[in-house]
């Protein structure tokens, strides 16, 4: 069973990467324009294409890429010459430092908010907040906390003047720089979790077992937390898992807005520069992470709920 799931996961990742390969090679404009700048002499573009082996037929380039991939080689960046894997690993910590707190924040705070017994306007205001795109939330946060109150920085991962030392001082500086980006990324998803929790818990509250609990005198607050929530959690966990892709996509916008050197920025810069190996490598990497997470979530799901057997 697990083997079959793994084979599927593997196939999905391969398909995603191959699609990315095809798309970026078929996109108009090659890396030569980006590499050489904006003007040139006759023959210059052809020469650069030859330099990077891009004058060969597409199937040949694809087979070459696939053979190397089989040996674990993701290739080298056209722009920097650095290996794609090292580029990705270099950027990963920044994106993790952004996405992990945002996921945690939106899961915990969102669930908490969803459990509150609130007035009518709650759902509507959450939905309205959810509809505001992340970059707009980010700009409002910058206006209030960075420019207005002046307590947090506008951009970057560390102070640009470079007077900060190493160790704890540097960690603190980074934490300070990450507050607004994490908030901006979390707010969008937090509202979603809150709405979902609320709906799920409300649905559970209609069901006979919660009515029974209430009838035997359990306080309403406890009925929600102890009885309804654990059952509602199932759907929540799987939905959060499937939204991981959304978090990563959101991270791209936030990294651009706050000028953070994470994977999202790497993707944008490489796509504009037509740095094919990096773009394909990134798609491969992210799809692998998302597919694997979903696999883990499904397996956790079975743990959380004995009723979900081999059907998964």
């Amino acid at each position, binding site marked *: 069973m697990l083997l079959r799931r793994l084979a599927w996961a593997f196939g999905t990742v391969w398909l995603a990467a191959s699609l990315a390969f095809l798309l970026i090679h078929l996109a108009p404009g090659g890396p030569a324009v980006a590499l050489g700048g904006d003007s040139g002499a006759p023959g210059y573009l052809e020469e650069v294409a030859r330099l990077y082996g891009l004058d060969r037929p597409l199937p040949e380039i694809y087979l070459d890429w696939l053979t190397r991939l089989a040996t674990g080689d993701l290739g080298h960046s056209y722009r920097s010459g650095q290996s794609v894997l090292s580029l990705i690993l270099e950027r990963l910590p920044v994106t993790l430092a952004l996405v992990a707190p945002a996921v945690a924040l939106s899961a915990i705070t969102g669930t908490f908010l969803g459990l509150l017994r609130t007035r009518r306007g709650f759902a509507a205001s959450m939905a309205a907040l959810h509809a505001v795109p992340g970059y707009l939330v980010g700009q409002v946060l910058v206006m209030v906390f960075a420019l207005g109150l002046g307590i947090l920085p506008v951009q970057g991962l560390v102070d640009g003047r470079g007077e900060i030392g190493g160790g704890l001082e540097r960690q603190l500086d980074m934490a300070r720089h990450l507050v607004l980006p994490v908030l901006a990324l979390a707010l969008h998803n937090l509202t979603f979790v809150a709405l979902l929790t609320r709906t799920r818990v409300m649905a559970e509250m209609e069901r006979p077992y919660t009515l029974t609990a209430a009838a035997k005198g359990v306080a309403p607050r406890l009925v929600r937390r102890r009885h309804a929530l654990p059952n509602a959690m199932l759907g929540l966990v799987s939905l959060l898992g499937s939204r991981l892709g959304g978090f990563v996509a959101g991270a791209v916008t936030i990294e651009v807005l706050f000028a953070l050197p994470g994977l999202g920025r790497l993707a944008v*810069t490489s796509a504009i520069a037509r740095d094919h190996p990096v773009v394909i490598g990134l798609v491969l990497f992210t799809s692998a992470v998302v597919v694997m997470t979903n696999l883990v979530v499904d397996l956790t799901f079975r743990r959380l709920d004995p009723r979900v057997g081999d059907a998964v």
Partner: protein
Amino acid sequence: MKFRLTLAIILAGAAFSTLTARAQVAVVAVAGDPGHLNPAISTAGPLHAVADSIFNGLVSLDRDGNVQPDLATSWTVSPDGREVRFTLSPGVKWHDGKPFSAEDVKFTFVEVLFRFHARTRAGLAPAVEAVEAPDADTVVFRLKRPHPALLRQLNVTEAPILPRHLYAGSDPNRNEANSRPVGTGAFRFEGYKRDDSVVLVRNENYFKPGLPKLERLVFRVIPGTNTQIAALAKGEVDYLGRVAPSDVARLKDKATLLDTTSGPGGANCIMTLAFNLQRPALAALPVRQAFAHALNRRQMLDLVQFGQGRVAQAPIHSAIGWATLPGALQAYEFDPAKANALLDQAGLPRSASGERATLDLLMFPAFARYAELMRQQLAAVGIALRLKPLDPAAFATSVFTQRDFDLALISYCNGVDPEIGVRRMYHSTAIGNVPFSNAAAYRNADVDRLFDQAGSSTDTAARGEAYREMERIVARDLPYWWLVETDFTSAWRGDFADFAPWSGQFAERAFQKR
């Protein structure tokens, strides 16, 4: 409790950042990641914005485009204009301590610039017969024909000099020094984090006495213009090389502003509408004349450029005073009625819905406001535009390789000499797979002849006359419609002084007051 802890951490961080002492540090925002730092193999803007402070050219150009000494202290041109002899500044050292010599110059031109620097390869290499280094302090350019633009093509942006001892015998595209550059320039390389920052420090042994004054020059890669402005307002960034016209008003009382016609992408730029003359509808002259009468360029200057520039008066930029022909375009006043009459006459009647034709307009996303305004203005005369914003790589391929477009919106930079940036727009040999060349696919034997004549004469008066004659012809043929001369604005915080406009060695003389 947890909240208090977080608050304490935030406050502690804030205290740290305000307590640190102020050295002579300038933080500069760049919009794109440089990729690598070898300015001799690329003309890309973000790369040159950073790397030009690490290197030198033989000469530099001041704000008005006049030639000033850089690595060369003086130069002489032979009477026939075919030999130019440079005397180099003595005792110049590379950042790694090795001596700089004429061999470095010769190597860089022959092995690197003439092969990989797109503009220098196209604009200078064909005129040069040989570059010679008779002794350590002398460089001689032997030319196939007099090439009056030579000196203006030798600054650090067009021709940065690389260290031969690190590049000889290697592929300059894959040399390790590309990411750890060693130059002769005012600033030494210290560190580079991709998509984040490049840190340069003062070159204590710079060959220009007393320079530079800054101790550190930090480039922060900040893609969003809103973020750049906010960072300047907050004091996280000290210098913005390029402020969008729509943002200039927001910065008026927050920073020192300097308007200039030059930037790292080139000097003296004209926003230009290119007609694809290979499309039957646009091959007809009355149709192109109709465009010229239908487009309200004053409105473009006011609404898109916020007044930062001028309505184009000639095919050549007004800053190249000796070559431009003021009033060359005055026959085409804004007159929609005339445009309608011309289109009727050209056999493009309005259909029942009032439309005459639908055309594709290709442009960079950054020029969307121009395109949007053009769509409104042309709709009034029955021409519908389909806007196709494309990123630079896709744009270059669609327009110059596949020639799959009706209209293209291009910012053509004339450079400081028409030989650099004007010739490639009109000369019939510049049609083809070369980005930002003759987009219109315009062919006129007289125009070709005038360019060849002007490009091989050293007599400025005679050259100016040839260019003006050329302008009379193209103003009549209208392969393009010249919209607006666009000015650039640089901005820096009030406690700094002596920054140069965004190009080349903009921070060589800058310092922080007090």
